[in-house]
């Protein structure tokens, strides 16, 4: 048997006769039709999502160019489908008016898009990083918050695809280099506050020149600047006015090179906590003290660094109850030569259990940014998608872009183990770009999760889910006070298993994701019971729900 396996492997190794010669593109870019059908098909152009990101790089290596590229999938016009918002960057040193603006795309309801930017009020021209969405004024539609290098923008949703920039009056500009952001009701007063992750204090005057193998001059890393920025917490005071409460809330210190955010309830106390992935500085875990304050607890909780104690380049954050024990685990993705860190949550204490997941070896050569756990094939197990693109240069060449790398797709096997899906990245042909944000949501309303990938200096990819399905599905919109109940916990019982999902948009990297909860049910045609634990702790049962359809769970409509 082992000999047979070895002979099988012989076939595999013989393939290296076609290995790319040094300096040539990787063979996998031109590989023949894969043995298994790809899980995703790239259809951005075919579906009208025409967006080309531009960092504005023009010879001189300016640090903000290397980490930009974000976007949002959200229902801008309350018509039940996901519209798309893509954040442009276009020239660090260029005047705002000279930059290309962000773009808004309206979904026709079938996953095809039309550019709806003109006159929408969403054409912000900051040097863009990412986006967050949430109903900040409690009127039932979602505002857009755009993070920039040079001042963030809060775009109030006036309905019908019209927005107005209210940053100045709202007090949400921040004025630092912000990366990811997320709406959350941190003080459970019923309105949505805003957590803004800031990267570092950068200015052109402080820019420097760095060198790296093998090409010489390139982008610096954050350690070259050593000027990490503190995060910002903006408390919603009503009337779309916010107050910066970072210092009194305890998030102004310590500073970190923040890039990724996940709002989650680490200790299941009903109060939202915040995890921030920092780049070359320890990650932060801000535990909610239930009085408007947070306590930075990453060291005590064991998620500031990996198991080896190494502080890595934290980029994006994935979150999900991977081990199905009722609390959510974290996945922090890092740069080349630094494998992912999977932090298993043991009720507010994290243990790094990456070695058992199957992520370590495969992620090592890549630099990963956008990331999300979703059940793409409906087998009832969380899968994982990672969007990759280097910041130095890639170990293998994937065409003329020296930073380009293929993305990665893993299938959940259960028990916290994963296996890479072939073809690599779930697409054929292989897509290799300098990917940044991966935004997750069901854009064609067919019950599975699609992915919008924002590529730095390249066209956005829309990966439409075509995975061979292994079971049924359920989509839940969870609503209280007429808006998505950010932070609510959904428990779905299927036989002896209970799947836990949280209503959230902020995870991955510089991304605002679909707020609806998506679940694969495996062979079960229905959930035996669906319960919602609302922010603050009140629980409500919505009974058994049939699968293969979307439901709206409204607070008060279930049984307490």
């Amino acid at each position, binding site marked *: 048997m082992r000999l047979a396996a070895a002979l099988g492997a*012989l076939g595999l190794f013989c393939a290296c006769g076609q290995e790319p010669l040094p300096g040539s593109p990787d063979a996998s870019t031109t590989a023949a039709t894969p043995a298994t059908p790809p899980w995703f098909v790239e259809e951005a152009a075919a579906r009208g999502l025409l967006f080309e990101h531009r960092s504005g790089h023009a010879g001189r290596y300016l640090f903000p160019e290397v980490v930009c590229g974000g976007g949002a999938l959200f229902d801008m016009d309350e018509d039940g489908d996901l519209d798309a918002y893509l954040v442009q960057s276009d020239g660090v040193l260029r005047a705002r008016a000279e930059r290309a603006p962000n773009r808004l795309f309206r979904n026709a309801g079938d996953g095809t898009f039309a550019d709806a930017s003109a006159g929408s009020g969403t054409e912000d021209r900051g040097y863009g990083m990412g986006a967050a969405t949430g109903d900040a004024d409690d009127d039932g539609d979602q505002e857009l918050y755009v993070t920039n290098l040079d001042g963030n923008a809060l775009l109030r949703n006036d309905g019908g695809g019209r927005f107005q920039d209210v940053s100045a009056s709202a007090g949400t500009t921040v004025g630092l280099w912000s990366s990811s952001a997320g709406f959350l009701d941190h003080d459970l007063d019923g309105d949505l506050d805003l957590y803004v992750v800031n990267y570092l204090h950068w200015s052109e*005057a402080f820019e420097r020149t760095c060198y790296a193998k*093998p090409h010489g001059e390139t982008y610096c890393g954050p350690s070259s600047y050593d000027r990490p920025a503190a995060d910002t917490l903006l408390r919603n005071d009503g009337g779309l006015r916010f107050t910066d409460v970072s210092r009194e809330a305890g998030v102004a210190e310590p500073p970190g090179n923040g890039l990724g955010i996940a709002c989650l309830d680490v200790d299941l106390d009903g109060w939202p906590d915040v995890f921030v992935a920092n780049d070359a500085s320890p990650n932060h875990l801000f535990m909610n003290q239930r009085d408007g304050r947070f306590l930075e607890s990453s060291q005590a909780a064991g998620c500031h660094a990996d198991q080896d104690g190494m502080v890595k380049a934290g980029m994006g954050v994935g979150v999900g109850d991977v081990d199905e024990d009722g609390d959510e685990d974290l996945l922090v993705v890092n740069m080349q030569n630094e494998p992912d860190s999977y932090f298993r949550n043991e009720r507010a204490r994290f243990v790094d259990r990456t070695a058992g997941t199957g992520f370590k070896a495969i992620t090592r050569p890549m630099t990963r940014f956008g990331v999300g756990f979703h059940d793409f094939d409906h087998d009832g197990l969380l899968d994982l998608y990672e969007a990759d693109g280097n910041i130095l240069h890639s170990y293998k060449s994937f065409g003329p872009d020296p930073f380009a790398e293929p993305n990665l797709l893993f299938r959940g096997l259960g028990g916290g183990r994963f296996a890479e899906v072939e073809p690599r990245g779930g697409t054929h042909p292989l897509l290799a770009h300098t990917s940044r944000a991966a935004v997750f949501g069901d854009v064609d309303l067919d019950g599975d999760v699609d992915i919008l990938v924002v590529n730095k200096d390249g066209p956005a990819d829309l990966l439409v889910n075509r995975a061979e399905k292994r079971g049924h599905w359920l989509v839940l919109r969870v609503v209280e006070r007429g808006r998505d109940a950010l932070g609510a916990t959904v428990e779905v019982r299927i036989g002896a298993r209970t799947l836990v999902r949280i209503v959230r948009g902020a995870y991955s990297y510089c991304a605002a994701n679909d707020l609806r909860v998506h679940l694969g049910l495996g062979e079960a045609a229905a959930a035996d019971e669906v319960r919602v634990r609302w922010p603050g702790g009140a629980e409500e049962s919505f009974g058994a729900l049939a699968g293969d359809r979307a439901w709206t769970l409204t607070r008060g409509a279930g049984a307490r």
Partner: protein
Amino acid sequence: MKRASRWLLSSALVLACAHAASVEFPTSGALSPELEAAVAAARTRVEAEPESAEAWLVAGMTFEGGDLLSQAEVCYRRALALGAPPQAWYRLSVMAWKLGDLPAAVAAIQRAIELVPSYAPSHWRLGTYLFDQGDFPGAESAHRRATELDPRFVGAWAGIALVYMASDRSQEALALLADLRARFPEHAHLVVLTRTALTEAGRREEAERLRVAWTPLPPGLDPWQAELRPYLQKSVMDRARELLGSGGAAEAVRLLEGWLADGGGDRNACAYLAWGYFLLGRPGDARATLESALAKDPDSVLVLGMLANLQEASQELPAALATCERILAVDPRNGALQAQRGRILTRLKRPEEALVALGAALELDGRAPEVWAEYGLAQCALQRWAEGLPALERALRDGAKSAGTRAALARAYVETGRADEARALLEGAPGLARDEQALLEELRQGSVPR
């Protein structure tokens, strides 16, 4: 059977590539000048001796040293097809591992082990690969074999501890780490691992007491890995920076002068060259270099920062202050410069302004314990003991080494009616300075109000 499988795997790996066409090298334009020269030399040798395993091995190490891993991998395979020594299998395994191809890495290192079973680092590598694969029993077994062959191969011992932790066997990990720390006290990394194991075991307070900076763990004696060292590429700037920090200013200056004369370099290079001149006692050359750089780019914070450093080190405090202010005008969020400005203002006996500057520095970046110390000392200099006390406490907690910090904190305790804490601080402290000893004596005699 197992042996046959391995043989087949590794042979296949080589045979498949043995007839590869001649390797094309990357175009030199894409490489740094240093690497381009090294690759050109390796290429010349390969072209002269295309059937030489050693020439291909050297080419592989040249590529590997320049982080061109897939190119290195091809060269190592070619070298093995031509009869390269066992260490080529070792190198090939490292390449495959770094490129994310774990099955190939395992196969290659197993072949290396078959050829030289007594080489401990190969077993450690195998343990590392199997650990990454999630094969914890296999990883533990391989690491154990490494430690049997070389009991001082600490990387393999640490590997066993990691296996324990990954298998939720934190008590065994802690016992092993305690033993290792006693046997290898020079490796601070073992303390880091202990801290992780304590946290995982839920012993947070004990973990908290083990504050130690992360340091890499040199795994152990590994002559095959050492063969790569001469091929590791470093840029002129990196080499110059290292030299400046390690007493090699003359060599750094030689490197940077040559680089700039050849048309290379940038404003970084000018700033570091100026610092090199200063270290060599050539302040005139240092100034001239900076002025020349500033003529091209008057707002370069790096060059201006170096100028401020030179001025401060030369005791030209008003000039240094002016330079700091010039920098802050273009880069107001520069916490390090605010701290430097505060320090200079303190030395200029302008304590109120110093306090404002140091406070602004801490607002921007509160990580540096020395800035907390300076802030606390500045408060105490103005007799603002209550304001200075928390800053000094934090400075000491975070490891500030500034002279007078502990004494000032003790005095602040006394002045705020906490003489017992002052006494406790000093009695437990090693190497008391004269003023600290005097204060402690006063406290013991009760001549200080409690």
